[in-house]
C-alpha cells in the first residue's frame, strides 16, 4: 500500500514561496518521477512528502490518512539520499539493520531481513565492510538496502544516481527499475536528468519554479507536451522551437519539431541551411544546422552513415504530422 495525495500544499522559506498551491496524487505501486531544472522545487516537494520539511499549508495524506503532522519516522516511508547518507562508523550490516534496531525488532528477524536484502542487492560479500571501503555503486546499493528492509509504503529517491559515473548510472537505473518490478511498491524519484525520467517512470511530473507543468506517462509527454517548456525539456536532443513567419504559416506563435522528425537531404525540402557541428554517435548523427532563417540553429537527427560535412548546404523536410503548435503564451494549440 502506498497511495500518496497532496492537497493544496504550499511551502515558503521566510517570504519566498518555493511551492505555490499544488495538488498531486500518486497511485499505489506507481513509479513517479519528479523532473525539472535545478531549483525548481522538486527536492523540496520530496522532502515535504518525507516530512523532513513541514508544509506551510495544505494536506499530505498517505493511504487515505492525514499525515501532515506525522513525524518522518512514523510515515512509513524510506528515503535514499543523494549522498547516500550511510553511517561511516558502522559496517554495512549495521547500516542496513539500523532502522530495524530503532524499531526494536527481534534480533533474529533483523538478521533474516538484512540477509535477504543483501541477497537481493548482491551485498552478501560486503556485509562486514565499512561504507568507506565500498565503491559508489555498492554504497548506493547499501542505501537502497537500508530502505527496503523497513518494507515501507513508498520509497523516496533524491537524485540517487547523480554521484555515479555514466556507465554505473545506466546499470543502477536498470537495477532500480527491476527492484520496482519485483517489489511493486510506490516509488517517487527526483532527478534533473530527463533520460532517467523517460526510461524509469510510469508517471512523470514536470516541475518549473514549484509549478507542475505537466503530469503524464513518458510517451504522453513526448507526444503531446502541454507547453513549450515541457516540449523543450523532454526528449534528447531538445525539440527545435521556431517563432515568426514560419510559425504563422501554421496559425501558431511557435512551432516545435523534434530532431528525429526532420529529414535531411541534398535538395528538395522546404527548408535549407548550412551544416555546422555534426556529432557522430555511430548509430545516429546529430547535425546542427545554421543559416536556416528559422532559428539560430536547428538540430537534426540522421542515420549513422549520413556523411554531410561542415559547411555543406543541405535541405530539410519536417514531418508534417509531427509538428507541435503553441500559442503566444507557450501553450499547446
Amino acid at each position, binding site marked *: 500500500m502506498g497511495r500518496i495525495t497532496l492537497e493544496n500544499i504550499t511551502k515558503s522559506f521566510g517570504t519566498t514561496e518555493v511551492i505555490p498551491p499544488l495538488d498531486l496524487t500518486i497511485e499505489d505501486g506507481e513509479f513517479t518521477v519528479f523532473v525539472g531544472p535545478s531549483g525548481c522545487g522538486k527536492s523540496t516537494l520530496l522532502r515535504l512528502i518525507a516530512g*523532513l520539511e513541514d508544509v506551510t499549508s495544505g494536506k499530505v495524506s498517505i493511504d487515505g490518512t492525514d499525515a501532515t503532522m506525522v513525524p518522518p*519516522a512514523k510515515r512509513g516511508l*524510506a528515503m535514499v*539520499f543523494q549522498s547516500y*547518507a550511510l*553511517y561511516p*562508523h558502522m559496517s554495512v550490516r549495521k547500516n542496513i539493520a*539500523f*532502522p530495524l534496531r*530503532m524499531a526494536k525488532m527481534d534480533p533474529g528477524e533483523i538478521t533474516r531481513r538484512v540477509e535477504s536484502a543483501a541477497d537481493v542487492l548482491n551485498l552478501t560479500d560486503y556485509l562486514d565492510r565499512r561504507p568507506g571501503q565500498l565503491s559508489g555503486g555498492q554504497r548506493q546499493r547499501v542505501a537502497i538496502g537500508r530502505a527496503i528492509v523497513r518494507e515501507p509504503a513508498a520509497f523516496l529517491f533524491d537524485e540517487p544516481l547523480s554521484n555515479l559515473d555514466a556507465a554505473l548510472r545506466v546499470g543502477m537505473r536498470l537495477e532500480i527499475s527491476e527492484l520496482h518490478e519485483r517489489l511493486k511498491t510506490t516509488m517517487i524519484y527526483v532527478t534533473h536528468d530527463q533520460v532517467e525520467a523517460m526510461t524509469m517512470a510510469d508517471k512523470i511530473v514536470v516541475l518549473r519554479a514549484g509549478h507542475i507543468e505537466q503530469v503524464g506517462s513518458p510517451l504522453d509527454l513526448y507526444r503531446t507536451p502541454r507547453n513549450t517548456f515541457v516540449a523543450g525539456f523532454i526528449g534528447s536532443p531538445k525539440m527545435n522551437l521556431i517563432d515568426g513567419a514560419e510559425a504563422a504559416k501554421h496559425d501558431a506563435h511557435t512551432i516545435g519539431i523534434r530532431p528525429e522528425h526532420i529529414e535531411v537531404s541534398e535538395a528538395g525540402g522546404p527548408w535549407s541551411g548550412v551544416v555546422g557541428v555534426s556529432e557522430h554517435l555511430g548509430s545516429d548523427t546529430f547535425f546542427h544546422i545554421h543559416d536556416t532563417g528559422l532559428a539560430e540553429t536547428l538540430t537534426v537527427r540522421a542515420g549513422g552513415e549520413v556523411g554531410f560535412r561542415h559547411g555543406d548546404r543541405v535541405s530539410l523536410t519536417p514531418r508534417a504530422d509531427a509538428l507541435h503548435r503553441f500559442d503566444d503564451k507557450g501553450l499547446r494549440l
Partner: protein
Amino acid sequence: MATRHSRSAARLMMAPAVVLLLGWMLVPLTMTLWFSFRKYLPLRGGDLGFVGFENYGRFLSSSSFWPAVQTTLVIVGGVLIVSVVLGILLALLLDQPIWGQGVVRILVIAPFFVMPTVSALVWKNMFMDPVNGILAHLWRFFGAEPVQWLSQASIPSIIMIVSWQWLPFATLILLTAIQSLDSEQLEAAEMDGAPPLKRFAYIILPHLARAITIVILIQTIFLLSIFAEIFVTTGGAFGTRTLTYLIFQRVLENQNVGLGSAGGVYAIILANIVALFLMRIVGRNLDA
C-alpha cells in the same frame, strides 16, 4: 618530484628546524638528568658533586610523592571530564542557528585569551571569596552558609577554574567537528526512526570520536603541567600539591636543585605512562 636531488634539498631546508627543536628539547633534558645525579644546594654550599641515585630515592620515599601523583591525576582527569562533557553540550548548543551567533561564539572563546594567573585570581577573589565572592552572596541569598571554596573544596575548585579555561578549546574543536557532519546523515537517521537522543548516541557521538580524542590528548599535555592556578590560589595547601608543584617547592622553597631534578625525571616518566594509556584507550580513533 621526489628525485634524489629534491630530497637532499628538502633535508637541507628542514635541518635548521630539526636542530632547533632537538636543542630545545635535548638541552633542558640533559641538564635535568645531570643535576638529578648531583647534590646541588645553591644557598647551602652550591654544587657538592655526584651522589648517584640518592636524589631519586629521597624523592620517591618522601611522604608527599604519592599524594602529589594522585592529585595530579585527579585534577587532570576531572578537568578532562568536565571540559569534554560540557564542551560537547556547548558545541551542540552553538551549532543551533541563533540570533547574534558570531558574538556568542567570540564570548565563548574569550576565557581562552585570559592568562592562567589572571583567571585564577579572578576566580579566587571575585567568585570564591567566602566573604565578598559572588558565590558566597548566592549561598547567603538562599540562606546557606557560604562555602570556603579553596580550603574546604580545594580540588573541585581548582578543577572548576582550570575547566573554565579549557572549555573554550574543547568547545571550539568539537563545534567544528559537529559542523562537518553531513546533515543528510541526521535526516536519514530521522527517517530511520531514531529519536533525538539516539541520533546523538549513534550518529553525532561516533562522528565526534576523533575530535574528542584530539581534545583529550592535547589537553592532557598541558594539564599535567598546570602551575599558575595552584600557585595563586592555594599555594599547594589543602591537598592541591601536584607533582609539578612539588618539584617547584623542592627547587625553590627548599633550594634543592638535585632533588627537584630527580622529581622532574619522575614527571617525565608519569607523563609517558599517561600518554601510553591514552594512546591505548583513545588512540585508535586517530586511525582510519
